[in-house]
């Protein structure tokens, strides 16, 4: 160990300064115990970042350990920059999802853009070339002009970044609910493709190997971004705007090409993104994984401004930077590759045998921690967990007794209302701003159940989707957790893909509140049950806590990013009805459950009742039956029933694809044990609308696999309406009206002029 001397000019460590760094008294004492002395200011900054919730997972880790993470094809599970699964033929898929909620709440354009940038880097540092981006977004009500500002800023940020780097944005979901009013959720997922042999891990190895900073220079932006993401949002959050990073997708594109070239070249042994907590976390984590020591000289780090202190250099979250462990003697080759792409590379430290994490400023040691304890000594917490009685009461309320509104006499009215609810309505307004076809692999882009990308050089394709219904989790976290996984699996299965593995982004409130921690623990337990039943292990993810604003916590929202594999391109299946005269079948069981539905929320403003049951064994059976039918070549289209229930699913099959509209005639009069509205708008799980020209075969397969299946109607390609006969009534909706409701809602709302336009609102748009 060396002598650590405080830098002249550093602030004195006081209890106020410790508190400002987000450390509790106990954590600070633990730090002193580890060092055997008081920390320097630089050391306090390092620990504050690494022990932040965002970096340390201190409240979530024990719970996350209960998730299944293994399968024969999982090449890399949690703990690396991204998870990796084998898809055969020597190829592998790397994928990961991550949140950028807090930055996006304050500065939507840059917050979302840098979220995309960070997750791209997580994937290409594994040696994979990114091939697709997805986004899972949650906003407040679009009636609010600030929400519209956040929505348009986030969409533009996502688009500008991904479009410029040249990675197609192919899928995702967008939900609007006042629960997310002041705390939007912005989760970005990236999927990459690689040869298995190119897999590289972020593990520092080889004493004497040089540590190099490559890519963009380090500036003063984003300092303490990780800590900012680890506290509740408040009125003061706006003042923390300087903690938000600024992205440059052009540099990212160069860094992407340079990094992949570096990995291929064999001149490096490890590479990691300098993401949250920048140089500090990347260097500490690489050392910890490799069980080696490191020493870093901050004066060697290329900076974009002069006079930066070690504290600032270490904690900067400037974007588009990588930390690389090169092979000793290959430094010049590394520099040459970066130079080709007009980027810098500088040796800033070394892998050492002594098990210390040491930071110097020239000769002076400004921070030193024993071994890897900097990472491993972070405390973990298992807070109290207790369900809020108010939620238990909401769940117990009987949804079926909510009186019908007068207009509901005609279910066509209700259906139109639901199709024009922003959560259900077409999101083309957003995804038309995302390049979804660059790299020419996109077989099915945004707007379907899941996106499908071909895998060049094979007869395979992969299907990807994100899903997560916060309202269900709010009402019953265990069931909601199960549904999140099951729905994502069903969505990829509808395209013909076998669900393979998931990444997850767990967006919750403040974990020190027992009711929040209860939601977290239960939702993860539900996810684990579904993952086990469906055979889709978790390969990584991200936890975002403290999603609370003065108006309260967001709905607990676990977002699942699912990857599925299609073995044969001929199995690729679309959601829209394809052929005139096809029989329409409902695979799965009619449940008539209205609790927690979009119908109750949109038509009645009620969030009550138990969310639909989710029997994970039955979900597996439904998916297996569907895939068997698809592989037998008897399925023309398949579409999952979710928000808005069967009626919305049928309408989407008719008018979801504007180039392929069909009418349909449906008979549901057999389901007389349920009310008309429960049949139409209940959101019972495990149901898929299938169309087929060989319905007997579909029924046969379903019966053999023990899955309920019923013929419910016919596709009329040339009919101009959706007609449904019900046990007590009937409805007829002209396609033009359904299409109008579905396709024009969001463009119309977004064309509204803002009620007030402050400089704050306009600045980010004007800046680009």
């Amino acid at each position, binding site marked *: 160990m060396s002598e650590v001397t405080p830098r002249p000019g550093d602030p004195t460590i006081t209890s106020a300064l410790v508190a400002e760094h987000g450390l509790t008294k106990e954590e600070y004492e633990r730090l002193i115990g580890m060092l055997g002395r008081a920390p320097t200011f630089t050391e306090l900054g390092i620990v504050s970042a690494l022990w932040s919730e965002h970096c340390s997972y201190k409240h979530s880790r024990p719970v996350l350990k209960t998730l299944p993470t293994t399968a024969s094809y999982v090449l890399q599970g949690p703990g690396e920059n991204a998870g990796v699964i084998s898809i055969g033929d020597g190829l592998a898929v790397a994928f990961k999802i991550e949140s950028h909620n807090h930055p996006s709440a304050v500065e939507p354009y840059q917050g979302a853009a840098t979220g995309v940038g960070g997750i791209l880097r997580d994937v290409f540092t594994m040696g994979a070339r990114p091939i697709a981006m997805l986004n899972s977004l949650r906003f407040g009500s679009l009636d609010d002009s600030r929400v519209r500002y956040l929505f348009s800023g986030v969409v*533009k940020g996502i*688009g*500008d970044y991904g*479009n*410029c*780097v*040249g990675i197609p944005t192919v899928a995702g979901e967008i939900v609007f609910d006042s629960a997310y009013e002041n705390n939007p959720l912005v989760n970005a997922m990236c999927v990459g493709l690689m040869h298995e042999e190119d897999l590289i891990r972020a593990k520092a190895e080889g004493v004497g190997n040089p540590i190099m900073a490559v890519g963009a220079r380090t500036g003063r932006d984003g300092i303490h971004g990780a800590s900012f993401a680890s506290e509740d949002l408040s009125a003061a959050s706006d003042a923390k705007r300087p903690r938000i990073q600024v992205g*440059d*997708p*052009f*540099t990212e*594109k*160069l860094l992407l090409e340079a990094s992949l070239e570096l990995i291929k070249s064999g001149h490096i042994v490890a590479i990691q993104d300098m993401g949250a907590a920048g140089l500090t976390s990347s260097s500490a984590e690489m050392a910890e994984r490799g069980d080696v020591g490191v020493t870093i000289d901050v004066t060697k780090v290329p900076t974009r401004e002069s006079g930066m202190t070690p504290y600032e250099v270490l904690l900067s979250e400037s974007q588009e930077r990588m930390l690389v462990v090169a092979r000793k003697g290959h430094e010049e080759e590394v520099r040459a590759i970066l130079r080709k*792409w*007009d980027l810098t590379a500088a040796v800033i430290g070394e892998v050492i045998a002594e098990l210390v994490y040491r930071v110097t400023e020239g000769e002076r040691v400004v921070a030193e921690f024993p071994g890897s304890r900097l990472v491993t000594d972070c405390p973990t917490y298992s807070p109290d967990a207790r369900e809020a009685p108010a939620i238990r009461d909401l769940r117990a309320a009987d949804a079926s007794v909510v009186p019908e509104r007068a207009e509901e006499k005609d279910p066509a009215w209700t259906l139109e209302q639901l199709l024009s609810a922003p959560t259900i309505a077409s999101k083309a307004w957003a*995804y*038309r*701003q*995302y*390049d*979804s*076809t*660059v*790299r*020419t*692999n*996109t*077989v099915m882009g945004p707007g379907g159940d899941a996106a499908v990308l*071909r895998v*060049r050089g094979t007869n395979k394709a992969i299907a990807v989707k994100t899903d997560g219904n916060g309202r269900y989790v709010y009402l019953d976290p265990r069931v909601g957790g199960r549904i999140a996984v099951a729905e994502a699996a069903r969505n990829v299965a509808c395209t013909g893909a076998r669900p393979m593995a998931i990444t997850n982004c767990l967006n919750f409130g403040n974990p020190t509140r027992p009711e929040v921690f209860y939601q977290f623990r239960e939702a993860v337990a539900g996810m684990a049950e579904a993952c086990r039943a469906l055979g889709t292990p978790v390969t990584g993810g991200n936890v975002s806590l403290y999603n609370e604003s003065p108006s309260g916590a967001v709905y607990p929202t676990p977002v699942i990013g699912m990857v599925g594999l299609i073995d044969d*391109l001929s199995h690729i299946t679309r959601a829209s009805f394809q052929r005139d005269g096809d029989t329409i079948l409902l695979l799965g069981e009619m449940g008539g459950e209205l609790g927690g539905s979009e119908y109750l929320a949109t038509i009645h403003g009620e969030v009550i009742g138990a969310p639909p049951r989710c029997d994970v064994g039955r979900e597996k059976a439904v998916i297996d039956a569907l895939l068997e039918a698809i592989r037998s070549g008897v399925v023309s289209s398949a579409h999952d029933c979710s928000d808005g229930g069967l009626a919305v699913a049928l309408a989407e099959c008719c008018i979801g694809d504007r180039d392929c509209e069909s009418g349909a005639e449906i008979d549901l009069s057999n389901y007389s044990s349920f009310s008309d509205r429960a049949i139409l708008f209940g959101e019972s799980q495990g149901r898929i609308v299938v169309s087929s020209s060989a319905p007997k075969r579909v029924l046969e397969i379903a019966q053999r696999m023990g899955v309920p299946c019923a013929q419910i109607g016919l596709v009329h390609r040339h009919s101009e309406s959706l007609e449904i006969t019900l046990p007590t009534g009937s409805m007829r909706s002209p396609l033009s009206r359904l299409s109008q409701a579905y396709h024009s809602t969001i463009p119309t709302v977004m064309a509204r002029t803002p009620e007030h336009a402050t400089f704050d609102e306009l600045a980010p748009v004007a800046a680009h």
Partner: protein
Amino acid sequence: MKFGIVTFPGSNCDYDAFHAITEMLGEDAVYLWHKDHDLQGSDVIILPGGFSYGDYLRPGAIARFSPIMQEVAAHAKAGGPVVGVCNGFQIACEAGLLPGALMRNANLQFVSAEVRVRIEKSDTMFTNLYERGEVLRIPVAHGDGRYVASAEVLDELEAEGRVIFRYADANGTLSADANPNGSERNIAGIISDGGNVLGLMPHPERACSPLLGSNDGVRLFESILSRVAA
């Protein structure tokens, strides 16, 4: 025949062009590095889409000064075929290989969509395997695709038959709704006065596979083959 595809820093459709040429057409293709001066014996040059130099200053404004562009200009001057797609069209305009300019889309939003493009002229180096009036399905993906030029230049382009692609609806009718970016006179693609430089905003290289939704771009490249080979 050999296609040379220029990679500028920030190009991101170079890969798509390369694969369209080699996999779908079965022709040779090479990547040409922006810092080089060597066209490696390419018969046809493709300036691909993307965000060369991050679109800093203006799309294409910096790329036109890349060393390789001197050779591209010389190739064009000698009558060699050059295809500028999307950012490549912007670069070609900035470099003076084509008249006019591409401005920010009229609605100020990036637009990614499959559009319909009508063939205006079928006796060109790039469209000789299409029928005049035929409507193609081709993706667009750009933020700066609104073609503008002075009225005189536009009239001259029309008079000389150099507007070869226009945005139209599925029936081939020109309308504001079919125009994704507000381009003057629905112009989607033009050729140089020598007829050997093409600039277009839609991406023909993304319309070369039925699996991906459209095969309509293939004949553009085949047209070049048939003309240059003949």
